[in-house]
């Protein structure tokens, strides 16, 4: 009995101390080369620091390295739809994909200041607590309590509300399907009002 207890405590200590398995993979690429590419090919829509000038183009600042690479590969392979991004991604070499991924990961997203404050309480509730009646899990569960995301789940904090709404729409309609069906299910459980509220809350997150 005491031996078991000791092992349980030792195992718990181990769990706290070890980094997540995904954090162990060493990213490859060159952020400085990535920045040069962004200045030439991406700046008009995503801005030089990844905080794009126009809300219809997503912020890419602070996206995780693995996530950016996955999205660019999926645009290249037409597994994620976008008439705009597919041809842009198609001409990138693997080296360039890694370089921009490293560069985006090194940039800081700034929160949006044009949010509707009246929507924030409901948005926050959904983000932190979900809606258990309809089976919407808390967004924080996967995307992190502060919206920082990780290698598997994208960063959301500070993203434009227009882009968030548009992506949730794509998930709900089954047009974006690179999510192992999880976001498609969640998008279909959200009401139109909830989508607006949570999108504004996400945009406001620092």
């Amino acid at each position: 009995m005491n031996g078991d207890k000791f092992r349980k405590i030792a195992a718990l200590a181990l769990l706290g101390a070890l980094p997540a398995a995904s954090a162990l993979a060493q990213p490859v690429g060159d952020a400085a080369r990535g920045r040069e590419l962004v200045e030439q090919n991406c700046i008009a829509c995503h801005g030089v620091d990844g905080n794009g000038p126009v809300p219809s183009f997503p912020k890419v600042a602070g996206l995780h390295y693995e996530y950016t690479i996955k999205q660019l590969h999926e645009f290249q392979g037409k597994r994620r739809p976008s008439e705009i991004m597919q041809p842009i991604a198609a001409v990138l070499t693997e080296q360039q994909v890694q370089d921009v991924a490293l560069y985006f990961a090194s940039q800081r997203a700034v929160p949006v200041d044009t949010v509707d404050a009246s929507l924030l309480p409901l948005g926050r509730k959904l983000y932190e607590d979900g809606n258990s009646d309809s089976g919407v899990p808390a967004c924080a569960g996967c995307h992190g309590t502060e919206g920082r995301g990780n290698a598997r789940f994208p960063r959301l904090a500070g993203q434009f509300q227009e882009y968030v709404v548009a992506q949730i729409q794509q998930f709900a309609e089954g047009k974006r399907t690179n999510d192992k069906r999880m976001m498609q299910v969640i998008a279909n459980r959200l009401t139109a009002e909830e989508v607006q509220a949570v999108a504004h809350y996400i945009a406001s997150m620092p």
Partner: protein
Amino acid sequence: MKRFLIVALTGAVLSGAALAQQGKAGDYVWNAPDPEKDRALAHKADPVAGKVAYEVCRGCHRADASGRADAIYPQLAGQHTTVLIKQLVDVRAGRRHNPKMEPFVSAEVLSAEDIGNIASYLALLPTPTNNGKGDGSKLALGERLYRENCVRCHGNYGEGSAQAFYPVVASQHYEYLFKELQMIRDGERRNSYPEMVQVIKGYGDDELRALSDYMSRLVLPANR
């Protein structure tokens, strides 16, 4: 720690097959062999990888796996690996109905090995005791019924049995326990243990509430 888990799991697989024989009701065999379940049970579980895989569950069962008293999301922390594995595989195979959760535990999201890893992680977590409880009005009745009819499988402290796939019921949310007991009694939880169904068949809702309240207040011994 790993060796301990493997020994425990191997023991569980063996006795699981034997126990399935006692769980027959008509054509239904409780805990019948299932290739996916057997893979998850036999997998050399890695709780660190399990913690990462558990991320997709946190939005409902919460980061500390304490669940939610109000939403009927059960507490998972400290549940036996064998029980967790069986229940997840049952949901995937359609033997236990859980439409809210099903898309998040599908084969697209989790491999059998992920299930084994998650279970080993959850089993190590301490079970919180600030769970949802009943109104305390029928604890004596609950205690009497539990001692008479449930203790032989679920244990003095509600600790169940990892070997036998009997769930921990101690410190579980009251509303969840009550809902499960109703479903088990009424034949709506299709993966139930036939012998247990026999035991609670004649109970009214009042008795199920008394039992649920009593179990929600049981606390696992510290040195389990």
